[in-house]
């Protein structure tokens, strides 16, 4: 196992669902030793969520869980029991980082506030990924991907297109777990910054990540335009998409095509064979085009409808106009591109068998992303961690198990 970028970091992940675990995954996949603490019995709630092979639910076969927990050590621990709390503190003593995503009040009640934990380990970086952060009037609100996504303004401006009467439709949550994953990603980022700060001060920090903020900052462009230009973001279609980037129907599917600056427009018109309509005053410049775009789009689509997705994409790319087919996951998994990049990796898991997983979206030339172990079985590393590292005896182990502590 070649040295990895984060090999020296020891992390305790007391988190479940998506945000915390994705944060932990990002660190683990680059070599950090992440010890995942799960509730005895049910474990991480992601274990309950599909997809499952053949749709037969099984705690060790949740696609979501398998993906989010690669490269981690897994232990079970009921931190609410007194023994559990003691064991937890011993884990913290030896850790560089604690990732947690529990309601601040719960954390405090259990005695794991940063103030307490830093007494145990002053160098500890504690990253708390919560719905609305550690402070503020909503800090104890409970949330899920849906609520956070909508609380960020993103659902409001989604979707951009493809709906006829947007105002009749409610604001729209992004697909899958976008909101949770962004929170986890931002958590990894802010965690690393605390790791650097610690290099200088030798002291840990409490990273307070609000999922709402993580998501809100994804709309920084809209926010800026509102705060600075008082440009109100309405859900009315016409009010929304500057430029003429659109979905176009082709004879056998949909493409997405962008031609929002002059040069692209010219190249695109040329690619379409300089149709007369395009030469008219209505489309002379960007501002005009936007005003008259309904007409414009109709014309373009008339043209694309006569052609296949492949043709349109080829023609567009030939004239350096950004354009791609609107793919399903299947096409993207089988795309020449991702195959060529070796993006998808097959991982063998004791319970789930061989499955193809998405890899990392980046390649580090010297310290590659790698899968050293699949997601842990529930409590798989209890013995390794509790006996091997914390020095408990196996008898302690059996007692703690029977007491439901692990």
């Amino acid at each position, binding site marked *: 196992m070649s040295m990895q970028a984060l090999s020296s970091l020891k992390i305790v992940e007391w988190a479940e669902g998506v945000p915390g675990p994705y944060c932990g995954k990002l660190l683990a996949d680059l070599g950090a030793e992440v010890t995942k603490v799960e509730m005895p019995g049910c474990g991480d709630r992601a274990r309950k969520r*599909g997809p499952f092979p053949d749709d037969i639910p099984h705690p060790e076969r949740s696609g979501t869980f398998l993906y989010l927990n690669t490269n981690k050590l897994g232990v079970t621990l009921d931190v609410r029991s007194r023994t559990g709390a003691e064991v937890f503190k011993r884990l913290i003593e030896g850790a560089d980082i604690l990732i947690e995503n529990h309601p601040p009040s719960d954390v405090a009640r259990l005695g794991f506030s940063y103030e307490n934990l830093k007494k145990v380990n002053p160098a500890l970086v504690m990253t708390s990924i919560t719905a609305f952060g550690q402070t503020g009037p909503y800090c104890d609100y409970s949330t899920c991907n849906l609520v956070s996504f909508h609380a960020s303004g993103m659902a409001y401006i989604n979707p951009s297109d493809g709906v006829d009467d947007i105002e009749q439709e409610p604001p729209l949550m*992004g697909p899958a777990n976008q909101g949770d994953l962004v929170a986890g990603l931002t958590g990894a980022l802010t965690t690393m910054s605390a790791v650097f700060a610690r290099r200088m001060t030798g002291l840990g920090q409490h990273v307070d990540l609000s999922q709402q903020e993580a998501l809100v900052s994804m709309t*920084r462009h809209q926010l800026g335009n*509102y705060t600075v230009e008082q440009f109100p973001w309405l859900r009315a279609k016409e009010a929304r998409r500057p430029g003429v980037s659109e979905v176009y129907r082709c004879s056998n599917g949909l493409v997405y095509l962008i031609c929002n600056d002059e040069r692209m427009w010219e190249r695109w018109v040329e690619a379409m064979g300089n149709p007369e309509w395009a030469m008219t005053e209505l489309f002379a410049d960007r501002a005009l085009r936007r005003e008259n775009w309904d007409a414009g789009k109709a014309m373009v689509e008339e043209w694309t409808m006569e052609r296949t997705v492949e043709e349109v994409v080829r023609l567009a790319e030939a004239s350096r106009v950004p354009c791609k087919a609107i793919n399903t996951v299947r096409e993207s998994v089988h795309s020449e591109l991702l195959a060529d990049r070796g993006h998808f990796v097959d991982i063998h898991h004791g319970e789930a068998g061989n499955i193809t997983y998405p890899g990392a979206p980046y390649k580090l030339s010297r310290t590659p992303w790698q899968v050293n172990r699949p997601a842990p079985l529930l409590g798989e590393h209890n013995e390794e961690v509790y006996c091997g590292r914390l020095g408990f005896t196996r008898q302690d182990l059996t007692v703690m198990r029977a007491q439901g502590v692990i």
Partner: protein
Amino acid sequence: MHELPLEGIRVADFCHVWAGPHVTQWLAVMGAEVIKIESHLRPDLTRSFFAGGKTLMPGLNQSVDFAVLNYSKKGCTINMTLPRGIELAKEIISLSDVVTENFGGPVMDRWGLGYPDLKKLRGDIILYSGSGFGRTGPYKESPAYAPIIDAFAGLTSLNGYSGGEPCPFGVGGWTDLTAAQHGAFAILAALHHRYRTGEGQHIDLSMSEVDCAFLPDAVMDYTMNDRVQRPQGNRDIAMAPHGCYRCQGEDNWVTIAVSTDEEWKAFCNAVGNPEWANDERFRDGPSRWRNQDELDQLIQGWTRNHTDWQAAGLLQEAGVMAGPSLSPQAVVQDRHLAEREFFFDMEHPEMGTVRLPRLPLNMNHSPFGKYEHAPSIGEHNDYVFRELLKMAEEEIAQLQEEQVIF
């Protein structure tokens, strides 16, 4: 005052538009000295973006998009089309730790600034390359436009209302920003590795892979079960109710998610319809899930008579996940974000006082990081050429003459 994590780290930043600048945005706020390299020949595209707000044609230094993506950076202008310009860039790079770029193709190679060349300039250099489809593979020359990538990678096919058409993601530049944060994280990991080993490396990030990383459940449902998922709107694979409901007022919405029978009972009591809990159709999770349409009807009947905040407050009181669906403008007014100082006023030489969102970076319960206004084009030429490269007045004048510094 905290010491900033990346103090002492210098970044030579060739990034432009969205995906790149957001990477260095994070580095800058974390304290790195980010030197943005543009020129009047090739200013960052976002300098000419406009949202359709009050200033229709903003000057190069007045673009909001640029302002929210480039604060805390320094700007200098170098004409990279001239050999001498490339020389200057090399001099800056040899004084830097990280080089970042997100060109539509191997521009760096053409300039003789590929990773092998950079390594010669500085053995431990870290080069970050962000692109739509990766620096290797068949599309390595394709320009990166988020919506195109989303279409290609399958994100678009999953975004939308159930049964409806796929909707391009309304959050302009969504994938630019998620990719950027993955990029920033990878850079921090590489820096961590460099601190321990003195080794630099090349980071090659592909935005299309970022999409896959964010669609693991859909991807694995396909790789495990050969199933192609479709848009599910605001619905969840298990929770019901789980949706966004219309409230009093114009285009006001509240989201509600119920995950257990207990929460359901709490919900029914909170909305003053305890009898719903005994309704056969809704008595338990699966029944509710099966009868979501009727359920959503009923709930909307209730939300209709409340404002989004009333509804959210009422339900959160009862321990039910709920929150308003905020528009960007509502986000700006949100009292919670206000209390957490998520928006800050920044003096901008040409735009005056602008209120911008900061990054979701909080340490020990307070906002954290370096926040300075985005640089006007070439604003820090003096600093860069005189202080950093120790060039004499005449030399600088000479280079300006020759349009090398331009």
